[in-house]
């Protein structure tokens, strides 16, 4: 059998091994397979469930005290973690759960915010005309020191590479030209939404620079401006307060981030978006999702925002009692919010308990110091391919002693994650050490035997209550890596570090960067303030869309079932239903149910097709009404219209197979069909026959009689026979 090593979420094999063959014996689902640029090992990303263990023989878990796996389980119980499905409101009250939102919504404009490039055209990552490289340098803070994020980003010594496509980016995008006048269309939309949020609209827009050193914007800052402050939105049983709404430019899309190279495309860069920030008024994960939905519906009801993948993105701020505000960035789907915030709350809770555990051990954080020394593969008796490969590649292998961290490294911090991951994540992001970058004395997937850890403890002259880790990387990155480990462990004494985290689809998060403070804003010296006059505001206010909460009330009024509201609000169909009710004899509840069911289905089936303009729906309904067609014909017409929105309604009607027929015509057709049924079917079940007959006659009945009536007719005929 080919040796395969399992670590974190990765399985990896020696370069000579045939990976698929090796993995086939493990019944592991391989998600991706790549050759590590650093070690030359093949790395397979797998879904490995730690609780189930892995399917390969591997060194046993540590034997001193309790095992790492036992400690993980124990601390999991200690934290009181439970799946979200089992959590109640009380769970979150006990945690002191608080959540605020920052909703980013792209605006539907032709051009970008500060230049004249077209907005909304995306390129494939490998489709570009030019590449250029920049480095982001921190600017000094007020105290003459670099702030946390700035220093971290500088320490990474990233080469930021931008891939430019001429169609979608100009010299402004790459910071070689000052900004042009702000896009007035975007500003008007932003003011409109600011009014819908009931905020106080500013008298003058001041373009402000917000520093970002990750390279996501080539200038190193985002141009952003407050449009309104202090508003509110209603959600079930409460009001959520709005801190502010700003108009800003979107950032680059990341292509890859490997080692010291981070690559972006500049297509999305500079597209106008609004950011709506709420107070931390949401006290449960479900409330957070509800508020996010509300804000999205509100923006969509303007009819002037972009929809589709990436058009709306949420940053979610979470804190618990004793914890810190942690920002989960770039949540692509609102439905992810509850799981992410739930897990983040427990992560913070766990980190606070780790701090307690460290304090119990009487370690003064100020005196805490890690020790480290280089080791060689020969120092280990276990064959440890990643360590050997790193060494062979000329990298250094460093063993680190973390005083007092025994039983902390395997401390539960979330499903499938423990404290050691916090260190490993930061090594990847800050020190640019690609994963797998370390293992530790309490690894849940150990690759080094207990005996070897004993040896290492000897080399480090470690005490029993200490934890150890081994990491590896290029010479140039070792110093930064040691600082990173030191900082993260120091922070463990205080509890929850200030940071932004990236969301993963499984509901957990990983470290992204240190949370920047408010001290990173300064005026844009390239642009003048833009007055927003009272007349401008009143003009926009006059054309304002109906409030989302009013829309919801309207739906309830009509008796539309609650579970259909989300769809109708998301695509802003309530206004259309109103128009249809006004123009035709079709009642709003019928229209609401029909639209949410039929359109939802068609959208799913033809996900790759662009949706037609829903503002034309009333015309289609009016067409049916004026022709005196039975309204159920819409069930056939809607999908056709969705696919061929430019064809005439007459043509759609023809395609639907409609022919005029009366009740008697339908009745007359039944006996022949019944004969055919007898021939084809062996069952004597009258229901089966009725079903079959209704199915046969449906096309004839559509548009002529209600489908309900068809059923009655068939029932009568079958009953009679």
């Amino acid at each position, binding site marked *: 059998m080919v040796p395969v090593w399992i670590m974190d979420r990765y399985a990896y094999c020696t370069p000579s091994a045939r990976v698929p063959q090796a993995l086939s014996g493990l019944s592991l689902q391989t998600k991706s397979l790549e050759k590590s640029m650093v070690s030359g090992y093949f790395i397979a990303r797998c879904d490995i469930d730690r609780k189930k263990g892995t399917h390969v023989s591997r060194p046993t878990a540590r034997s001193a005290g309790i095992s790492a796996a036992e400690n993980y389980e124990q601390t999991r119980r200690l934290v009181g973690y439970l799946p979200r499905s089992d959590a109640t409101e009380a769970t979150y009250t006990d945690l002191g759960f608080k959540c605020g939102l920052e909703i980013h919504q792209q605006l539907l404009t032709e051009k970008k915010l500060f230049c004249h490039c077209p907005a909304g055209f995306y390129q494939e990552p490998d489709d570009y005309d030019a590449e250029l490289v920049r480095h982001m*340098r921190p600017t000094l803070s007020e105290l003459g020191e670099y702030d946390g994020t700035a220093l971290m980003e500088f320490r990474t010594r990233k080469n930021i590479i931008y891939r430019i496509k001429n169609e979608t980016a100009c010299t402004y995008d790459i910071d070689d030209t000052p900004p042009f006048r702000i896009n007035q269309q975007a500003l008007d939309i932003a003011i409109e939404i600011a009014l819908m949020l009931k905020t106080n609209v500013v008298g003058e827009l001041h373009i402000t620079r917000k520093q970002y050193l990750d390279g996501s914007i080539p200038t190193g800052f985002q141009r952003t401006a407050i449009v309104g402050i202090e508003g509110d939105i209603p959600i079930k049983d409460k009001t959520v307060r709005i801190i502010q709404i700003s108009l800003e430019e979107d950032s680059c899309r990341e292509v890859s981030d490997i080692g010291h190279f981070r690559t972006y495309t500049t297509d999305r860069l500079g597209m106008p978006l609004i950011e709506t920030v709420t107070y931390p008024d949401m006290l449960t994960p479900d409330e957070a999702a509800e508020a996010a939905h509300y804000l999205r519906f509100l923006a969509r009801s303007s009819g002037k925002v972009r929809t589709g993948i990436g058009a709306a993105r949420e940053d979610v701020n979470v804190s618990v009692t004793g914890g810190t505000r942690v920002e989960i960035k770039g949540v692509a789907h609102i439905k992810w919010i509850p799981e992410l915030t739930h897990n983040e709350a427990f992560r913070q809770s766990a980190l606070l308990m780790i701090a307690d555990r460290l304090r119990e051990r009487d370690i003064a954080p100020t005196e805490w110091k890690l020790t480290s020394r280089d080791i060689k593969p020969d120092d280990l008796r276990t064959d440890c391919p990643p360590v050997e490969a790193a060494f062979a590649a000329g990298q250094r292998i460093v063993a680190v002693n973390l005083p007092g961290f025994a039983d902390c490294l395997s401390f539960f911090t979330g499903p499938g994650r423990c404290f050691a991951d916090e260190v490993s994540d930061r090594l990847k992001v800050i020190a640019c050490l690609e994963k797998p970058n370390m293992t530790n004395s309490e690894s849940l997937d150990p690759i080094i035997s207990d005996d070897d850890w004993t040896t290492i403890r000897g080399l480090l002259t470690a005490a029993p209550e200490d934890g150890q880790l081994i990491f590896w990387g290029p010479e140039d990155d070792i110093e930064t890596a040691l600082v990173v480990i030191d900082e993260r462990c120091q922070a463990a004494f205080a509890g929850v570090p200030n940071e932004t985290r990236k969301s993963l689809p499984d509901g957990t998060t990983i470290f992204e960067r240190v949370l920047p403070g408010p001290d990173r804003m300064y005026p844009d010296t390239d642009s003048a303030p833009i007055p927003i006059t*009272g007349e401008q505001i009143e003009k926009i206010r006059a054309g304002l869309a109906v409030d989302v909460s009013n829309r919801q009330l309207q739906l309830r009024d009509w008796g539309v079932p609650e579970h259909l509201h989300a769809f109708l609000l998301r695509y802003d169909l309530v206004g259309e239903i109103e128009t249809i009710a006004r123009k035709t004899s079709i009642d709003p509840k019928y229209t609401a149910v029909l639209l949410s069911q039929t359109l939802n289905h068609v959208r799913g089936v033809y996900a790759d097709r662009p949706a037609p303009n829903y503002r034309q729906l009333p015309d289609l309904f009016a067409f049916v009404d004026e022709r005196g067609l039975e309204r159920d014909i819409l069930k056939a017409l809607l999908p056709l219209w969705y696919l061929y929105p430019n064809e005439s309604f007459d043509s759609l009607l023809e395609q639907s197979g409609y022919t005029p027929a009366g009740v008697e015509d339908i009745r007359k057709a039944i006996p022949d069909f019944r004969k055919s049924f007898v021939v084809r079917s062996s069952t004597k079940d009258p229901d089966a026959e009725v079903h079959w007959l209704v199915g046969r006659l449906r096309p004839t009945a559509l548009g002529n009689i209600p489908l309900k009536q068809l059923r009655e007719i068939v029932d009568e005929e079958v009953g009679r026979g």
Partner: protein
Amino acid sequence: MRRSGVAETMEGYKGAALETLERFKARVWSESQIKTTRGDFTGIILPRSENDDDKHIVLKLATGYNIGIAVDTINDIIEQGYKQANYKIPEKEFPVTEGLPHVKLLGTGGTIASRLDYRTGAVIPAFTPGELYGAVPELADICNLTTEKLFAVFSENMGPQQYRKLAVAIGEEIEKGIDGIVIGHGTDTMHHTASALAFMVQNPPVPIVVVGSQRSSDRPSSDAALNLIHATKTAAESDIAEVMVCMFGPTSDEYGLLHRGTRVRKMHSSYRSTFRTLGDIPLATVDKEKITPLKPDYKRRRKDRDVKITPVFEERVAMVYYYPNMQRDIIDSLVDNGYKGIVIAGTGLGHVNKPVYPAIERATQKGVAIYMTVQTLWGFVHMFVYDTGRDLMAKGIIPAENMLPEVAYVKLGWALGQTDDLDKVREIMLTPIAGEITEREPYNGYIVLQGGLPEVEEFLHSIHM
């Protein structure tokens, strides 16, 4: 670019805005709640830029954002606190390292390094060695740095007076034994200053490097720090003892180019890689690790201090950019106003239209020195090719070879500063001193690549690291 930072304008309020602040006894720097018809706003009242209107008050919110409040919506202002800004930049002592070269940085006013006052948003220039060390600590690995601020003017306000003062200061530093000189300069007229220094400071034994930045140093993507590192490295270590401009090669953060001070020109209003050597190739490339000469025929660094400083400049010299249908009064009025020298940037090989001829004749008769350069920037003036050229020379215009128009202007001012004898002026003008006229134009001295061509697109497609 609006360079009048908040710091200089402090208050900046006038008219209706000032009246409103006075009416409610609200002070700049006070933390205030402003009640308006559009709702309440709370923050610190900031100074306003003098060029902005008198209808708004600037407020910094707790989130760090600035907003403006229309004064005609204000019902009340309630002061809740007060804190005046402190603009001092913290200093860290620049470390002295035994054995490292000594470099002098002379400041003219451009902002090379700066830091932000986040509370007010003001950009504060860093200039003393301590301040620079705080902003660009890498400098301490390159040299022992001392600085002197000669003046504080924007690039466009640099002129003869400043050229002369700079040249004298450079001479003094060389005499004192400095290993290299860096001059911080705004970029707009950097090439004018560089050529002026190339003429006024002859035969320098050490590198003299003019440097600036296209993106102000308060932004993380600024080219300032890297340019300063490159310039300092060049001054400290390079073997090239000439007046040079050191700025970005490509727009990417890859390497800098060292341009000869008399052949360099700013070619783009905003690009980082705006400075180009015209009609020749740059002297060298410079990055954090090394300086790589591209031209072998540069003047070498020397131990001696035999520099010749000629800090003179005749200010009544003008440059005229010819355009079709130009009339003679343009030239006449210069002559009538007592100008002693005129540099014309002519079309093609060096031409102007017939209506101007009599004015030129009159000017030369009145003892005004007139030199011809080309608008095409690349290439020599060739006035024998067409009758027009021959006619013009007959009327007294002197072709200035392949001197760039700006360089010819500076040189004419410098030459006329030394003598009124037009024959001597001619001799000075046409004798190459610092590469301003080249005997030959190398084949690779003219390259303006055209986008869209497959080979150019291929070059642009990937970075060259």
